[in-house]
C-alpha cells in the first residue's frame, strides 16, 4: 500500500517485459474466474469442479473497461475472457502469460492445421490466447409486425417500426453501425467523420425507443420490433425462448457487419495458471463445447462441435460466422487514448441529447 493517490502518478513510458512462459496444464489450486455473467453453462462449470476437485470462484464484469480497471488495480484472476482488441492491449502491456497449445490435449480442436486461429489478427502466433467464441452484429426483427426490411443498416430507421426500434447500448457497436452506413472504417476517430456519424445517430432518435443491450428481453417482451442485435442473442431468442420462432428473423446488413471474437487469456499475475490451463482444455472438449453452445447459442470454434452449431443455426444462416468472415476488416481494433476519448465524447453527446 502507498500514500493515497500514489497510483495516479504515472508517465507514458511503454512497458517492455518479456512474455512469462506458459504454465503446465496441472491443477495448482482453485480457479479464480472473471467473465461476463451467465456466459458458460453452469453445469459445465460444475462438472469441472467435480472432475478435478477444485472450486471455481466467479466474478463478473459488465464491460471491458470495467474488466480492465479491475486488472489494472492489481486483482489476480486466473482466467479472463476479453474481446479481441483487449487481448492486443493486455498483451502489449505485459499483463498476459503465454499459453502453449502443446500443453493442451484438445489443442487440435482449434489449432488444427490450416485453422485461422493459428494466426489470428489479434494475437500473432496465438501465443497468449485460445479462441472462445465468435459472433457478428446485425439486425433482428419481428416478421409479424414489420414487412419492409431491406437488408441494410438503414432498417434501423424503418418508419414502420417507429417507436419500436432499439440500438445496442454499446459505444463500439453503435458507432460501427453508423460508420458502415456512411462507408467509413468502423474504428474511425477522424473528427469530420465522427461529426457525420453523430448527426446520423441523432437523426435516429425520433424513431428510436431506447439504447439497450438487453436485446433478448426487449424482443421477447414485445417492446422491440427492430433491434440492433448480436447473432448469438438472436439465436437464443428464436430457438430457445420464442413461442413462435417464425415471427422473428435476423439479417446481416449488406454494408458489412462487425465481427468480434472472445478469447481465453491467463493474466501474468495469475496465482493458479495451471488450473486455468486445465480448465481451457476441459472447455475445448467437444461435448462441453456443445453444452455451452446449447446454453448460449453462440458458436464455439471447436472443430468437432461445429456441426452441432450448424444444426442449431440452420434456419438462420445469417447467424453463422464463417471462418472467412473472421478475416474481414470490420473488427474492432485497439485505439489510442485520444481517439477513444473523441469517440466517447461523441457517443456521450448522442446519448445525452
Amino acid at each position: 500500500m502507498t500514500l493515497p493517490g500514489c497510483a495516479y502518478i504515472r508517465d507514458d513510458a511503454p512497458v517492455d517485459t518479456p512474455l512469462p512462459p506458459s504454465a503446465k496444464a496441472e491443477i495448482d489450486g482453485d480457479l479464480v474466474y472473471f467473465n461476463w455473467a451467465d456466459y458458460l453453462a453452469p453445469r459445465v462449470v460444475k462438472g469441472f469442479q467435480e472432475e478435478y476437485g477444485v472450486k471455481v470462484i466467479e466474478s463478473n464484469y459488465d464491460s471491458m473497461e470495467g474488466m480492465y480497471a479491475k486488472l489494472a488495480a492489481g486483482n489476480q484472476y486466473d482466467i479472463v475472457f476479453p474481446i479481441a482488441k483487449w487481448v492486443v492491449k493486455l498483451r502489449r502491456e505485459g499483463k498476459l502469460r503465454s499459453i502453449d497449445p502443446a500443453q493442451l490435449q484438445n489443442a487440435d480442436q482449434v489449432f488444427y492445421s490450416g485453422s485461422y486461429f493459428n494466426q489470428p489478427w489479434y494475437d500473432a502466433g496465438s501465443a497468449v490466447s485460445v479462441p472462445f467464441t465468435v459472433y457478428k452484429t446485425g439486425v433482428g426483427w419481428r416478421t409479424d409486425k414489420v414487412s419492409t426490411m431491406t437488408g441494410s443498416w438503414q432498417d434501423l430507421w424503418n418508419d414502420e417500426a417507429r417507436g419500436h426500434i432499439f440500438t445496442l447500448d454499446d459505444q463500439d457497436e453503435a458507432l460501427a453501425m453508423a460508420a458502415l452506413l456512411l462507408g467509413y472504417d468502423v474504428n474511425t476517430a477522424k473528427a469530420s467523420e465522427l461529426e457525420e456519424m453523430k448527426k446520423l445517430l441523432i437523426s435516429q432518435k425520433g424513431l428510436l425507443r431506447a439504447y439497450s443491450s438487453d436485446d433478448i428481453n426487449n424482443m421477447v417482451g414485445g417492446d422491440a420490433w427492430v433491434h440492433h442485435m448480436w447473432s448469438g442473442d438472436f439465436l437464443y431468442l428464436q430457438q430457445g425462448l420464442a413461442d413462435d420462432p417464425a415471427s422473428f428473423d435476423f439479417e446481416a446488413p449488406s454494408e458489412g457487419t462487425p465481427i468480434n471474437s472472445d478469447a481465453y487469456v491467463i493474466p501474468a499475475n495469475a496465482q493458479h495458471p495451471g488450473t486455468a490451463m486445465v480448465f481451457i482444455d476441459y472447455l475445448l472438449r467437444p461435448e462441453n463445447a456443445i453444452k455451452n453452445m446449447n446454453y448460449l447459442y453462440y458458436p464455439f470454434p471447436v472443430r468437432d462441435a461445429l456441426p452441432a452449431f450448424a444444426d442449431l443455426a440452420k434456419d438462420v444462416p445469417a447467424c453463422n460466422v464463417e471462418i472467412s468472415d473472421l478475416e474481414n476488416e470490420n473488427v474492432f481494433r485497439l485505439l489510442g487514448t485520444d481517439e477513444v476519448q473523441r469517440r466517447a465524447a461523441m457517443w456521450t453527446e448522442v446519448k445525452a441529447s
Partner: protein
Amino acid sequence: MARARRLERKPMFAVVVTAVFFAWLYLPILAVALFSLNDKKSLSTFSGFSLRWYDDLVHNDALIDSLLASLKIATVATVGSLVLGTMLALGLERVRSRRGRVIGAVTLLPLVTPEIVTGVAALLLFTGVGLKLSMTTVILAEITFSIAYVTVIVRGRLAGVSLEVEEAARDLGCTPFQALRLVILPTLVPALVGAGLLVFALVFDDFVLAFFTTGVDPQPLPVRVYSSIRFGVSPAINAIGTLMLIGSALLIVAALVLPRLFGRGTSSLDLITGGQK
C-alpha cells in the same frame, strides 16, 4: 395522559391510496415469486408449475457463493457500523463544541450523497493507495456509508435518555466509563437492534457501492444480479429473488418482535422513525 389515537371518520381517500400503494408495491414481488415457479423461461406467460429454477439455483455455485458473500459482508459491515456509529452518536451528543458540529455534519454527508459518488470515490481511493479490491474493500466502503444511519437512529434514542439518570449514576460514584457501560448502553440496546437490522438489510441489498469496490472474491449478490439483468434472461434470478425476499421478510419480522423482549411499548420502528412514547 392517554392520547386518543382514533379519529371518528375513516378518510376514504387516504385508505384508497394506501390500498393502491400496497398493490403497486407487491405486484412485482408476486410476479417474481410466481415466475420462479414457471416451467418455461418466459416472463410473460405462465405455463405450469415447476421447481426447475430452484434446482438450477442449487447447482449454480456462483450464485450460492454470491449469496454467502453478501451475508458475510452484511454481517461484518453491520457490526462495524454499529460500533463506530454508536461511538459517534455518544460523542456528538455529549460534546457540544463547534468541532463536534462539524464532525456531525460530515458524518451525515454519506446519507445525502448519491451512491455513484461514494462508489466512485471509494474506487479511486482504493486504487489510488494500491489496495487490492476484495471483500475487505467492499466491507470498508459499506461501513463508511452505513455509519450515518446508525448515528441518526442512536442519537434519536439518546436524546430521550435523561441526562439526570447519567448524572445520578455519576453522583453515586460511577466513572464516566462505568456510567456508559452500565447505564447508557443498556438503554440503547433496542436502538442498536433496530439500527443493526436496518443496516444489514441496506448493505445486503446494496449494489452501487459494491459494484465499484469488488475484487476477485465472490461478488455480492446484487452485483451478480445487475450483470445478469443487463444482458440476459436468467429465470434462476427469480428463484433467488424470492428467497431473498423471504429472508428479508423474516428479518423485518424479527426487527418487530425482538425489541418487545425489552419491554412493552417499545418497537424498533419507533426507534427507526425517531418517535418516542
